C-alpha cells in the first residue's frame, strides 16, 4: 500500500513540535492503512535529528553544510523523487511559514491534490478523510482523499506530539542532493530588533486586537498591563497597522507565548493567533462578537466593548490589590 512521507520541519537547528505531531498522525494513518512512514529531512546538520524520529519506519536524509536553509526547489525535488521511489502518494507538511507554499507547488508538479489547514485525520470506509479549518476557523470541511492520495498541510497544535516521539533509533538512508535550478537566493536571517520587552517571558499579557480601534488606545492597555504586572502584546492586524512593534506580535509569524494570564481584547481568535497563545494558562477574552472563535478556547469571556472595560478593570484590580 502506498507509503506516507513526513517532511521534517526545522529552523535554526531545532525541530518544532509540529514535526512530532505529523509523525504521530502519519503513524496512526500508516497503521490503519498498512502503509510505511518515511521521515524526510533536508538541510544542514539534519542527521542529528534522526535519532528523535523513531516513530517513522526510516529517515531519509539529504544533508549538506550549504543547505542552510535548504531551498524550496531542493526540498520539492527531494519530495518528488521520494514520492516516486517509495511510491508514496501521501505527504505531510508542517503548516508553518518555513514550509509555506511547498504543498501547492508539489501538488502542481505531481498532480496529487493539496489539502490545507488540516486539523484532523481519520480513516473511514478504507479512505482517508481530512478535516480542515477554513474561513478563519469558523467553518470546518471534511475532504475525502481519492485513493487516499493527498499532500497535506498540518496545522500546528492539531495532533498530539507525544504520539510522534519514541526512543527507537530509526534506520537512516542518505541521499545526495539532486541538482536543482534555484532562482530564489537566500541571503540572511534577520532577528527581530531586541525590543524593550520579551513577551515570551511575561506572566501576564494584555493583548490588543482590532477591537482596540486605534493607536491612541494602546497606552490605556499599557496602564492595565502595568497594574497586572505584565506587558502589552498584539495580534497581527495591530502590528500591521504600526500601532505596536513586531516584537509584540503573538501568533504564527510572531511569538509563541505561555503566560499565566492572557487577556485578549478585541481579538477574534483566528487559528494563526491561537497558535501563538494556546500555551496560556488562563485565557480571558473580551469581544463584542459573541461568535468570535476566541470564545471557543478562552476560559472566561465577556461581550462588552474592550474599550469600555479598560478603565473599570484597571480600577477594580488596583482596588483588589490594595485590599490584600
Amino acid at each position, binding site marked *: 500500500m502506498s507509503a506516507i512521507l513526513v517532511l521534517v520541519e526545522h529552523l535554526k537547528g531545532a525541530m518544532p513540535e509540529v514535526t512530532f505531531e505529523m509523525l504521530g498522525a502519519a503513524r496512526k494513518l500508516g497503521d490503519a492503512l498498512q502503509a510505511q512512514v518515511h521521515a524526510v529531512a533536508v538541510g544542514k546538520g539534519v542527521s542529528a535529528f534522526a535519532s528523535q524520529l523513531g516513530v517513522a519506519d526510516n529517515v531519509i536524509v539529504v544533508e549538506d553544510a550549504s543547505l542552510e536553509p535548504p531551498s524550496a526547489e531542493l526540498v520539492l525535488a527531494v519530495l518528488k523523487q521520494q514520492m516516486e521511489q517509495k511510491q508514496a502518494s501521501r505527504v505531510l507538511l508542517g503548516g508553518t511559514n518555513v514550509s509555506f507554499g511547498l504543498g501547492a*507547488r508539489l501538488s502542481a508538479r505531481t498532480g496529487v491534490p493539496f489539502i490545507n489547514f488540516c486539523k484532523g485525520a481519520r480513516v473511514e470506509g478504507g479512505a482517508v478523510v481530512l478535516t480542515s479549518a477554513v*474561513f478563519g476557523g469558523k467553518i470546518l470541511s471534511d475532504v475525502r482523499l481519492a485513493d487516499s492520495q493527498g499532500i497535506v498541510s498540518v496545522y500546528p497544535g492539531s495532533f498530539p506530539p507525544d504520539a510522534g516521539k519514541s526512543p527507537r533509533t530509526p534506520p537512516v538512508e542518505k541521499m545526495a542532493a539532486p541538482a536543482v535550478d534555484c532562482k530564489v537566493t537566500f541571503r*540572511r536571517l534577520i532577528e527581530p530588533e531586541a525590543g524593550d520587552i520579551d513577551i515570551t517571558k511575561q506572566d501576564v499579557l494584555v493583548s490588543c486586537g482590532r477591537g482596540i480601534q486605534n493607536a491612541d488606545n494602546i497606552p490605556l492597555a499599557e496602564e492595565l498591563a502595568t497594574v497586572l504586572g505584565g506587558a502589552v502584546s498584539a495580534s497581527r492586524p495591530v502590528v500591521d497597522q504600526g500601532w505596536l512593534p513586531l516584537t509584540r506580535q503573538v501568533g504564527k*509569524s510572531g511569538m509563541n507565548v505561555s503566560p499565566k494570564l492572557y487577556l485578549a481584547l478585541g481579538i477574534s481568535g483566528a487559528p494563526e493567533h491561537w497558535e501563538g497563545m494556546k500555551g496560556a494558562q488562563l485565557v480571558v477574552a473580551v469581544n463584542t462578537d459573541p461568535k468570535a472563535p476566541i470564545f471557543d478556547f478562552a476560559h472566561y469571556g465577556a461581550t*462588552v466593548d474592550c474599550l469600555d472595560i479598560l478603565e473599570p478593570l484597571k480600577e477594580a484590580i488596583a482596588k483588589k490589590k490594595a485590599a490584600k
Partner: protein
Amino acid sequence: MNQFVLLKMVPDTVEELNVASDNQSLDSEFLRFKLSDPDEHALEQALLLKEKQGGTVTVVALDAPEVDDVLFTALAKGADRAVKIPVDQTKLGTAATAKVFAAFFTSGGATLAPLTLVMPGSQANDDLEGELAPFLAEALQLPYLGVVSSVALEDGGKKAVVLKEFAGGLRGEFEVPLPAVLGIQSAEKPPRYVPVAKVRAVMKSAKIETVSVAAPEKAAALDLEKMYKPEAAGRAQMLEGSPEEIAGKLADLLAERGII
C-alpha cells in the same frame, strides 16, 4: 516596471457564517464578501514600489460580489488599470482560480515582460486547496516566494530583495529575479486610506476593462464531503453585566487564582 496585483474576494468572517442546506457551501443569505486582507497589502506594496520606481500597477480580479467597488477603490488609490475577468470566482477553488489567472497572463491579457512582478496576497481564508501565488508561479514557470513583508528592487529593477516572515518575528532576506510571483503578507506600510468621494469620482471617470478567459473545466480540486460549523470544544464561561460589574468579577477571579 509592470506590476500586477491579483485581488480575490473572500467571505467576510466578521459576519456570522452559516452552512447552506447542501452542506457543501456557505449559506448566501447573510454572506458578505470583502477583499482578502493580504491582497489589500499587496496593492499597497505595489503602490509603494510604483512611487519609488515608476512603472504601472494593474489590478486584476475575477467576478465576485462587490468586486467592482474594490477595483474602483484600487484605481482611486493609484492603480493605473483595473481588469475584471468575467468568470465567477465564488464557484472556484483556489487551484481553478490560479488557472484562470495563468490563462490571463499567457493568452494575451498581459505581458510577462522582464521587469514584471505579479503580486497576489500571500494567502486567503478560503485557501483549502492551497495558495494562489505558488499555483500561479508553477503554471507560469516563474520564481516564487510567499509570506513576503517587504519588497525592494535592485540592479535596475531586475532583482527584488524581499523579506519573508518566519515565526517569532524572525525574517529571512531573499533575492528573487524578475519576472516573479510574490505572495505578499503585509506591506511595508499599512494600506492607505482613500475617501469614498474619491472612489465615487473614479467610478465616473475611469473604466474597468474586461478580459475574457475561458472558465476552467474543474471548479474544485478536492472531494468535499461536507462543510459544517465546529462544535465548541470548550466554551468560555461568559461574564455578564455592565463593564464595571464584569471588571469586578474579573478582579475577583484573578485574585482567587493568585494572579494579582
